[in-house]
């Protein structure tokens, strides 16, 4: 070594001097990332050695773990597979729970929106017969369900209750051959009888051949059957054929398209108008733009009274009639005022059912049975006649 240095003494000194000045430069100069070159060089010089050392260490440890201590791997694999299976099951369960919660939310929204009183129920079983289109729900007569009540979903009609047990009810689906309901086309021009066929499609019967029915047209419940209130979606026409003596109209039921897990049983039906547009094509309300703050508000708008609803008008009318008779509301001193002279007609057709006074204080989700507590059994004919007279479906009048 010494002879080598002596032999190349000049060159060695040159390299040392050059190297020293390179170090001097590297201490001062920074690269484009504001790191001194001496650091870059040092890291670049050290990293490969560190990588090699780490490679050797990792290889040794990996060899030790993978080949020397391999006897536990199989057991751990089995345990991990079991854990993965359990997690998959939990995942499916949680997804189902989420779907259930979403359906319950949709039902809740529909319940709050529809004027009819409804009772939410969950399908707990299907009929035993292969051709029988019946299901069982977890709401029975103990919760106010009666035979003949209509069953719907937010999408459309589902069927009707054919038997009410204390804790469950049997529902005949609209696709069953024994099912029938009165329907009306969207424009109100075509009336017919909806019949199940035992197939996924329903049939609208008794429609004269001269009536115009088109594919894609919507049918709604007409309310004529005294089971389904007017205005519930039934389905979309998928096929129309001219036959003798009536048209053959096949309808795709919309209430059964998304499966059947949660339903609503209509305990007090209220007829509604047929919507002007199909369910899936309802117009969307868009609020007016905010007022321009730069412009002053019009004096007429500032002094105008707040708008009142039809209910407010009714209340004011009844209040005025009572005060005209000298009745003091809320005191209970005088007898009830005579409201028979009021001849107010509701703007919508058909009229809202006139609820009996005790029932008016009953919350929407309360037991629809008569408040008198009488143990009377309502027959279909009685309830239907009540509905025809505008009485709630749950009220009893013999």
């Amino acid at each position, binding site marked *: 070594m010494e002879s080598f240095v002596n032999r190349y*003494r*000049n060159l060695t*000194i*040159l390299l040392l*001097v*050059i190297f020293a*000045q*390179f170090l*001097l*430069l590297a201490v*001062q*100069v920074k*690269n*484009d990332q504001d790191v001194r*070159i001496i650091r870059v060089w040092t890291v670049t010089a050290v990293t490969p050695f560190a990588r090699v050392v780490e490679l050797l260490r990792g290889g040794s440890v990996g060899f030790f773990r993978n080949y020397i201590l391999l006897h536990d791997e199989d057991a751990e694999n089995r345990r991990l597979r079991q854990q993965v299976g359990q997690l998959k099951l939990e995942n499916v369960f949680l997804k189902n729970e989420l779907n259930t919660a979403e359906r319950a939310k949709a039902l809740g929204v529909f319940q709050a929106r529809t004027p009819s009183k409804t009772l939410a129920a969950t399908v707990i079983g299907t009929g035993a017969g292969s051709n029988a289109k019946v299901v069982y729900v977890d709401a029975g007569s103990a919760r106010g369900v009666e035979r003949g009540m209509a069953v719907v979903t937010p999408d459309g009609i589902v069927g009707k209750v054919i038997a009410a047990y204390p804790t469950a009810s049997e529902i005949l689906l609209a696709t069953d051959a024994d099912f029938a309901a009165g329907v009306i086309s969207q424009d109100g021009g075509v009336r017919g009888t909806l019949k199940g066929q035992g197939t996924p499609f329903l049939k609208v019967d008794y429609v004269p051949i001269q009536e115009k029915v088109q594919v894609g047209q919507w049918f709604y419940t007409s309310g004529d059957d005294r089971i389904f209130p007017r205005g519930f979606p039934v389905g979309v026409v998928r096929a129309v054929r001219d036959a003798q003596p009536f048209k053959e109209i096949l309808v795709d039921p919309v209430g059964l398209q998304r499966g059947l897990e949660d339903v609503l049983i209509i305990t007090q039906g209220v007829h509604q108008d047929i919507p002007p547009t199909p369910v899936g094509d309802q117009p969307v309300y868009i609020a007016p733009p905010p007022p321009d703050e730069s412009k002053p508000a019009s004096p007429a708008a500032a002094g105008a009274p707040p708008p009142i609803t039809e209910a407010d008008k009714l209340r004011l009318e009844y209040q005025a009639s009572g005060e005209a008779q000298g009745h003091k509301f809320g005191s209970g001193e005088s007898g009830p005022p005579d409201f028979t002279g009021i001849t107010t007609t509701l703007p919508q057709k058909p009229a809202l059912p006139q609820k009996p006074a005790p029932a008016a204080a009953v919350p929407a989700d309360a037991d629809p049975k008569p408040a008198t507590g009488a143990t009377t059994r309502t027959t279909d004919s009685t309830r239907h006649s009540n509905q025809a007279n505008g009485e709630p479906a749950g009220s009893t009048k013999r």
Partner: protein
Amino acid sequence: MAYSSGRMLLSQSDGPVSRFRAWVFIVVPLLAILFQVYVPLFFPFLGFLEMPLMVVVYLSLTQRSQVGGILTGALIGLAQDSLSKNPLGMFGICKTLVGYFAASVGVHFNVDNTFVRLFLSFLFYFFHQTLYWVMQRMLLAQQPPFDYQSWLLFGALNAVVGVFLFHFLDKLRAAV
């Protein structure tokens, strides 16, 4: 100056060795650096002159010692760096290599001939500028232009000035 052309390419190891007095190694480089620093302030057209480089070339050629050339080039280059805005070592590395190669040439060839000095001055100037350009790009991440035409011209001018400078410096050495 009295050498024939045949003598010019012979080895100088057997010939007389030039020795300088000690103060020459301090004063001459210092004057060259001061010239490089101050003269262009008053005479900008003289900015092309690389007097420290010429001094390094001369001292290395005449000393005929590679270690001496290395140290001379390194010290003058670092001194020049310390008076410039560049990081320390840029001129130092360039002049270290110039000193080493100049000393190597001086060991093997007779460099007292005017044309040899002219050629070597031009060659080392070009080598110095090229090396400096490379280091600017590689170490400082700068993008200076490769202005070889100017380098050729200034190299020729420096070589001419260097010949006269070497002739003057020859007066300062004493034969041993």
